[in-house]
């Protein structure tokens, strides 16, 4: 972090300029670009948990969904009675003024970051003692349970869903909404990236890696693994919640199992994207999410009805040919470019041993 090389600087400033210019360059693609930012954030936060710490979780969707419901609830609840807003599938109509809308979403996002992080702490305290598959299965249940529970809570619309406040009508520009959500998600992406990059240069990451590589040894070295595992998960939850909050506002309609606690799609996608790009790397999830999103948007409409078959094939291909992801594959092929020094003698010796 302290010595950003010149080339890196060029890369980052280039990307930021591209990111800022994108909604103007590709005006028609704003919504897809917003999705891309959110997907990258989800992949990166999953990577913290699954890639760096080695705790494969399917439960991050819980924080994403929570963030979504919380932002919308706060945004409505600050100015109107929430129960009436959602009653009978949202029959009554209340209108936010421009100021109310932005104040609401601001406070809502704040809540949607903090509450999921706190909940991650509490749940983590309870279940992070589980390891390996047991942890994965346990978290799988979290998302499913949350979806079913949310579907029964009347005040957030239950099965009829929750229509989030419409973008203020006083803003006439039809592009304004798209831009607002794009820049919001882009800011989140930049924030998340800086945070993750910071972690990559810190002792914290080494501890997470130690937990992944051998938790017992890490503990024997005097690391309080439980504490770090919980903090790690809370970091994931913080950004997942924010991502959910933004998505809720963008989609405009929250459904308990299909939009918020959408473990079948978003929950799987975030794992897939991180693995596709290469888990345990900084750029892996970014590249994975970008590739995945382009694959999805580009190809899915061409193969109407077969897209999930294609997705299945993609998963198989990734797992069979790129088990370490694209970054892992590149690293194996061109180790010197990753700054790894190879001892030719040692490599030959190993080949002979085989």
């Amino acid at each position, binding site marked *: 972090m302290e010595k950003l*090389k010149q*080339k*890196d600087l060029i*890369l980052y400033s*280039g*990307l930021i300029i*591209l990111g800022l210019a994108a909604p103007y*360059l*590709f*005006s*028609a*693609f*704003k*919504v*897809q670009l917003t*999705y891309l930012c959110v997907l990258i954030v989800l992949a990166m936060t999953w990577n913290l948990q699954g890639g760096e710490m080695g705790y494969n979780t399917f439960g991050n969707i819980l924080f994403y969904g929570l963030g979504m419901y919380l932002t919308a609830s706060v945004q409505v609840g600050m100015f109107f009675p929430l129960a009436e807003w959602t009653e*009978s*599938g*949202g*029959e*009554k*109509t209340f209108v936010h003024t421009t100021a109310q809308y932005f104040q609401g979403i601001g406070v809502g996002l704040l809540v949607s970051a903090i509450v999921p992080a706190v909940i991650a702490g509490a749940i983590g305290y309870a279940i992070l003692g589980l390891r390996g598959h047991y942890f994965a299965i346990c978290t799988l249940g979290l998302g499913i349970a949350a979806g*079913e529970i949310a*579907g*029964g809570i009347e005040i957030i619309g*239950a*099965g*009829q*869903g929750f*229509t989030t406040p*419409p*973008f203020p009508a006083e803003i006439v520009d*039809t592009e304004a*909404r798209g831009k607002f959500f794009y820049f919001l998600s882009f800011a989140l992406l930049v924030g998340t990236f800086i945070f993750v990059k910071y972690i990559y240069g810190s002792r914290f990451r080494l501890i997470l890696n130690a937990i992944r590589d051998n938790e017992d040894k890490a503990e024997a070295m005097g690391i309080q693994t439980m504490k770090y595992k919980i903090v790690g998960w809370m970091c994931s939850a913080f950004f997942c919640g924010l991502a959910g909050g933004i*998505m809720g506002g963008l*989609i*405009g*309609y929250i*459904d*308990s*199992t*299909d*939009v918020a606690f*959408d473990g079948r*799609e978003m929950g799987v996608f975030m794992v897939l994207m991180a693995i596709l790009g290469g888990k345990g790397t900084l*750029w892996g999830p970014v*590249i994975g999410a*970008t590739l995945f999103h382009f694959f999805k948007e580009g190809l*899915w*409409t061409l193969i*109407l*009805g077969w*897209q*999930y078959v294609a997705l299945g094939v993609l998963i198989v291909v990734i797992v069979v040919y790129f088990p370490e992801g694209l*970054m892992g594959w*590149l690293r194996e092929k*061109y180790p010197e*470019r*990753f*700054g790894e020094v190879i001892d030719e003698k040692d490599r030959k010796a190993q080949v002979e041993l085989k």
Partner: protein
Amino acid sequence: MNKIAKLFVTFISAITLALVSFTSSFAKVEGEYIVLGSAISLTGKYSSNGVHTQNGYNMAVDRINKMGGVEVQGKKYKFEIIYYDDESNPKRAAQLAERLIKQDGVHYMLGPYSSGLTKAIAPVTEKYKIPMVEANGASRSLFTKGYKYLFAVLSPANQYLEVAIDLAVEKNGGKGVKIAQAFEQDAFSQDVRLGILDAAKRTGSEIIIDDKLPKELNDMAATLAKVKAVKPDVLVVSGHTKGALTAIRQISEMKVDVPMLAMTHCDAAKLSKQHGKKSEFALCASQWHKNLSYKDKFFGSGKKYAKDFQKEFGYDPPYQSAESSAALLVFKDAFERANSFDRDAVRDALVDTEMQTFYGNIKFGPGGQNVAKPMILFQVRCKGDDCENRVVAPTKWASDKFYHPIPKWSERS
């Protein structure tokens, strides 16, 4: 790291170039085609009804194009639809609506299947002022939002089974009845529930079981066990196609005796074919039935529509297909009356729609819902092993008398 960074930059610039060179090549009207857009559930839990909807749209497009198309300012145009698969997911549907409008340049939309997805798409079409004629979003809350560009050819969901409760009360000598109900956790079914709650209040009926069923519904044994224990006068079930199939399967397996069974989506589920005699006496709410005597010049009567549909797609059209076909007729009519492709002119013409189609009369209320067409109820009746849907209410259209109460399973052959 730097090499990787370079690779990444190359990748990004490649994508940038690709995106810039991809400019929207479609337009609202292209040559002789009027391009409509629709996100449809071709996969996921609504896929069967999504296909019914798509077939309905396609059937009408073919027919209208064959019979001369749409005449605007003296020129003949044909309809064309761009479809995307929304995977039965509201998130995807909203995204695709945006894509249809912004990238494909669509200026007129056809609705998706189901209330939930329509709820997700309506804010998008409203934002861009795109007229949307939808045929499958019945949730009442769609019509109280003050949407100006949303038009539904169907009756709101809360009206689906209200009539059934009235019928039960009538059979009970005007006294309130005991109602057991189970509804799927989705926007449409929950709206049907609201209708029942209203009807119960109005008739002084009592709701003794009020269950919520999960999405991807395939088990309701717990509800049925309760029904067996408390013996209600009416059992109401709604959960799209899967709900209807599950209900009949488990009611017959568990031999649940109930005097009256009211449901939705029986025809979409092809209940009388799938379950035959087991489904006999089930009472079903429907937007349309082929025996009704509405007519138009494109499809003729409902019976003719059913015959043509059967020939084209190999099954009897459920009302989901019929109403979807009607949506196209509404659009054609509006374009011709507007005599323009201006979105607001088309929208204003839609507001003034007053027409008869094979599917029913269509006239839009202030919220955009169709106020000119009543819901109907039919009952599954069998002759031998051959089962059919017969209209029993309202009396104006009824071809058969309503059979009540349903005989006990021990007495059924």
